[in-house]
């Protein structure tokens, strides 16, 4: 009973740590990018200040905004919060891991995306419609690739549960799996597309015609915008943690002792910082693609995940 | 096996010598002399094999038995007669300016190297070396097909290179698969696993059927491309028509035979291990398809050499069909057909070469009245076409008759497409040739310097084989038939 309570408390704590750390990851990303581009960087906690500022601001709503427009930010944030609660950040054996299914995760993302698109269409502006259609196109192409990669990983671990799969991979030790290599590349490309990073979308752009994701939330202000921005940062962190969990799971805690938890926190922090640096290098090396080249980019990632599945079936199973 | 070594080394050394001095006027004569030496030693070797039975070289790298010995003699013979023809022909080409002296050097040396590669392919015991020799044969002739450097010639040579390259690569994969099956039976570490004698003898019946089936499919596609089986034949009409005529003669007459020889050797291995007749059925199917399709394509041609290349495809299809049917009668017929087709086709190409020199063009509708301008060429073309179409008393009639008889015995319904095909091919050939040979010669057409001796020798041999196959030759064929099909036809 006592251990149950501890477990649930740890689950809640992990979820809170997750959403609290998301803006920190965003800040670190921005800082590294500024250094790489030889600019003066804002401090790492700047994102917190931005969120606080937005929460204080007064909201303006369009006249024809329906109830949907007002409700969507909360839906999106709740979906992301739930998703963050099930992804193992520091430790694997939590009771919330029972619903940590990868398909459920994809479902959460789809839910958030669907409602954001609806909100964009709700106002009736041109940019809202444009952003919604673009985002849906990218999602339609990225989802098969992601699911194929996820299935490949699940076939190796014989489960779609993220927590159980992480544990399996942790126990298998160092195994050179080509399917994992290809799935990593495919997932990375899909993550870049879904979180609106270069080369699919430039998150720092202010030109509306070049926006994919930003165009959908142009009309939001005040605390609505704060929630949506925070949800976006949580999404980026979720993708990063999935990649880190599956492919480099060493350091994650498998029991609830204080030592293991501390090691888990330090390990995941270090891995996320490193992943952010890799992302920044990638973004600096590549230029944003024209929109009609995005299907080719995502087609290549789909082929990579197909290849991952094929190499798994051909080379890694049986003898 | 010193006679074999002489047979192989003479063309190789000749090729190297001609690479240095091939542009001199004496090069044609040296070419002929090398051909005479090769033919002489091949004939001597054949007599030795005839007297003492199959010969295996001490290193077990070469093996001469009844099947390949007569092909070796045939290759050397046709190589010799074609080199006799090529002497005045290339002189004429140089005078007309179509070939520079540097390219003449290339031509002469590659000619002998090509003969060497074919002889190597015929006499080797190692399946891997067989592949290497076949690829070498392709490589030596590629530059010769494009000798005239016109856009059409270069396109033909590129097509030849690429299509045969793809095909040959599949054949290499098939060879690897055979090696895989054999190594599985013999274990790793022996160095004789790719030897045909070993595979045919000890391993017969014991190679894994799945691997051998897969290997045969790849080898059929691979070597079948070089034989010119439809639908892998697209390179053949181009390559045989765009190169200089001596090249067309040896490609049509000899290389197709060597590729089919490789295919039949492999089929002998496969039949021993597979207890179904899959290999035979596949060969029959492809052979019949080539036979019918080529006969139909014959009619549409406007270039005389292309027309006769399609005739080559048709006849090689017929021979493949015969070998696929198996059985002593069909095999005997197919072996005979290989010989007479080779002799007749090379004679035709030689005649056609002179006819084109005479008329100044290769287009059928612009060649007229050959028999008026130069009766030797006209008669040669007429008799050659009659021979290849299967008229008695030429030898082609005998072999086609034997194949028809064998088909009637085992696959009676297939005689109908065969007969129809013969009729269609005859109609196509005679339709075009009749216009070329007879009719009013266009003004300004003068006789050319032509040595019709090779043509007369070839046609005489074909006639002889049609009237009465000499005793030693029929015994040769019988031994080969026993080897391939396991029973004697006589």
């Amino acid at each position: 009973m006592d251990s149950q309570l501890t477990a649930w408390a740890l689950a809640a704590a992990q979820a809170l740590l997750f959403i609290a750390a998301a803006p920190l990851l965003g800040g670190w990303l921005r800082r590294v990018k500024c250094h790489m581009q030889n600019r003066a960087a804002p401090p790492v906690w700047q994102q917190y200040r931005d969120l606080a500022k937005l929460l204080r601001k007064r909201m303006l709503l369009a006249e024809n905004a329906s109830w949907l427009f007002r409700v969507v930010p909360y839906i999106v944030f709740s979906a992301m919060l739930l998703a963050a609660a099930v992804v193992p950040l520091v430790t694997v054996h939590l009771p919330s891991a029972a619903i940590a299914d990868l398909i459920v995760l994809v479902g959460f993302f789809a839910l958030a995306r669907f409602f954001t698109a609806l909100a964009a269409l709700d106002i009736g502006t041109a940019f809202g419609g444009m952003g919604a259609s673009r985002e849906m196109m990218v999602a339609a192409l990225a989802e098969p690739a992601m699911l194929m990669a996820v299935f490949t990983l699940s076939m190796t671990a014989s489960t779609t549960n993220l927590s159980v799969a992480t544990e399996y991979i942790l126990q298998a030790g160092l195994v050179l799996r080509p399917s994992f290599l290809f799935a990593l590349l495919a997932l990375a490309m899909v993550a870049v597309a879904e979180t609106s990073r270069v080369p699919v979308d430039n998150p720092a752009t202010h030109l509306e015609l070049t926006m994919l994701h930003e165009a959908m939330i142009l009309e939001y202000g005040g605390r609505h915008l704060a929630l949506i921005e925070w949800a976006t940062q949580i999404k980026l962190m979720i993708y990063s943690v999935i990649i880190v969990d599956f492919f480099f799971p060493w350091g994650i805690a498998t029991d609830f002792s204080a030592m293991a938890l501390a090691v888990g926190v330090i390990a995941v922090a270090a891995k996320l910082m490193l992943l952010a640096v890799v992302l920044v290098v990638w973004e600096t090396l590549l230029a944003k693609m024209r929109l009609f080249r995005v299907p080719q980019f995502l087609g290549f990632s789909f082929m990579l995940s197909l290849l991952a599945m094929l190499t798994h079936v051909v080379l890694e199973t049986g003898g | 096996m010193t006679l074999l070594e002489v047979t192989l080394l003479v063309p190789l050394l000749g090729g190297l010598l001609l690479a240095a001095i091939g542009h001199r006027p004496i090069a044609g004569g040296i070419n002929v002399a090398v051909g005479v030496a090769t033919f002489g030693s091949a004939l001597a070797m054949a007599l030795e094999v005839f007297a003492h039975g199959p010969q295996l070289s001490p290193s077990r790298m070469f093996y001469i038995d009844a099947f390949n010995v007569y092909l070796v003699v045939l290759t050397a013979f046709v190589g010799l007669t074609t080199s006799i023809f090529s002497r005045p022909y290339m002189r004429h080409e140089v005078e007309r300016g179509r070939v520079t002296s540097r390219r003449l050097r290339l031509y002469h040396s590659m000619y002998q190297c090509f003969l060497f590669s074919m002889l190597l392919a015929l006499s080797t015991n190692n399946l891997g070396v067989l592949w290497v020799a076949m690829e070498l044969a392709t490589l030596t002739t590629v530059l010769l097909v494009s000798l005239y450097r016109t856009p059409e010639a270069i396109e033909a040579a590129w097509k030849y290179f690429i299509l045969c390259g793809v095909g040959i690569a599949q054949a290499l994969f098939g060879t690897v698969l055979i090696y895989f099956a054999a190594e599985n039976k013999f274990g790793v570490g022996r160095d004789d696993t790719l030897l045909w004698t070993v595979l045919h003898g000890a391993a017969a019946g014991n190679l894994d059927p799945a691997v051998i089936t897969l290997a045969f499919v790849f080898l059929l596609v691979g070597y079948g491309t070089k034989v010119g089986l439809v639908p892998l034949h697209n390179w053949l009409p181009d390559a045989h028509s765009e190169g200089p005529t001596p090249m067309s003669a040896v490609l049509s007459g000899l290389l197709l035979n060597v590729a089919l020889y490789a295919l039949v050797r492999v089929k002998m291995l496969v039949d021993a291990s597979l207890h179904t007749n899959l290999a035979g059925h596949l060969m029959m199917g492809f052979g019949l398809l080539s036979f019918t399709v080529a006969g139909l394509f014959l009619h549409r041609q406007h270039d005389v050499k292309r027309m006769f290349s399609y005739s080559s495809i048709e006849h090689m299809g017929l021979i493949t069909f015969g070998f696929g049917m198996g059985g002593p009668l069909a095999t005997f017929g197919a072996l005979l057909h290989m010989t007479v087709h080779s002799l007749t086709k090379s004679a035709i190409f030689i005649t056609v070469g002179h006819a084109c020199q005479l008329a100044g063009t290769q287009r059928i509708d612009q060649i007229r009245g050959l028999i008026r301008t130069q009766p030797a060429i006209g008669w040669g073309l007429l008799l050659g076409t009659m021979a290849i179409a299967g008229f008695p008393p030429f030898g082609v009639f005998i072999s086609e008759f034997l194949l028809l008889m064998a088909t009637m015995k085992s696959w009676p319904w297939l005689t109908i497409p065969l007969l129809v095909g013969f009729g269609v091919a005859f109609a196509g050939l005679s339709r075009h040739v009749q216009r070329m040979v007879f009719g009013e010669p266009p003004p300004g057409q003068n006789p050319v310097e032509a040595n019709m001796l090779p043509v007369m020798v070839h046609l005489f041999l074909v006639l002889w084989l049609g009237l009465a196959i000499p005793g030693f030759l029929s015994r040769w064929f019988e031994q080969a038939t026993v080897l391939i099909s396991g029973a004697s036809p006589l």
Partner: protein
Amino acid sequence: MGIASLGLYSQAIILFAALALFTSFIMLAQTRMMPLIFTFAWQGLLLTVVSVLVAIVSDHPHLHVSAALTFSLKVIVIPWLLYRLSIKLNMQYDAEVIEHPTLLLLGGVALVIFSYHVAQSIVHLSGLATRNTIAVSMAIELLGMLLMCVRKSAVAQVIGFMSMESGIFFAAVVSTYGMPLIVELGVAFDILVAAILFGVFFFHLRDSFGSLNVGQFNRLSEANQPMPQRDAAGEPAPGDPS
């Protein structure tokens, strides 16, 4: 599970074989000349590493000779030849157009599935623990053939041909521990001569046709043959209705 129970070297063999298959796919979609040549060189390097690993795992030292042959030919000589040819022909910045790259890649995936299906019936004979790489080698060979069939640049066709040979060599390494030495030397010699001849050909093609786009080599097609003309003497040919 299958792969987790193998030793580290065998896992490395599988990993490098999968990466070689990946380079085949990259070559299918790569339109620019120089990256295509470099990708081909990478494929040769990966296959060399696999040969060395198989030599170590299965204790067949003569495979090192095989690996050295592959390295010198497929990684050094042939890419260098093609690189120099591209520069001499002034085509190093050329990029050809592929109509449907995604369809092409999916076709490649279908070929991989096909070769796996075909190889299933024969892999049980191999003694090597990583024998499923036979399917990968067949796939590399078929993908090389696909490259030759669908690409319009002559250089891409040549690279497809060389890639086919790489696949076959790889098949020999993983199924039969390499071929007898004399056969391997013969094959390597043939490939080298073929590469040199291809180089000579590129110049002829460029001089005759003005480009290396094989779509323009169609003078000898059956459909393009010119119709029969009137007789040379001006009279209608016998048999013509006139």
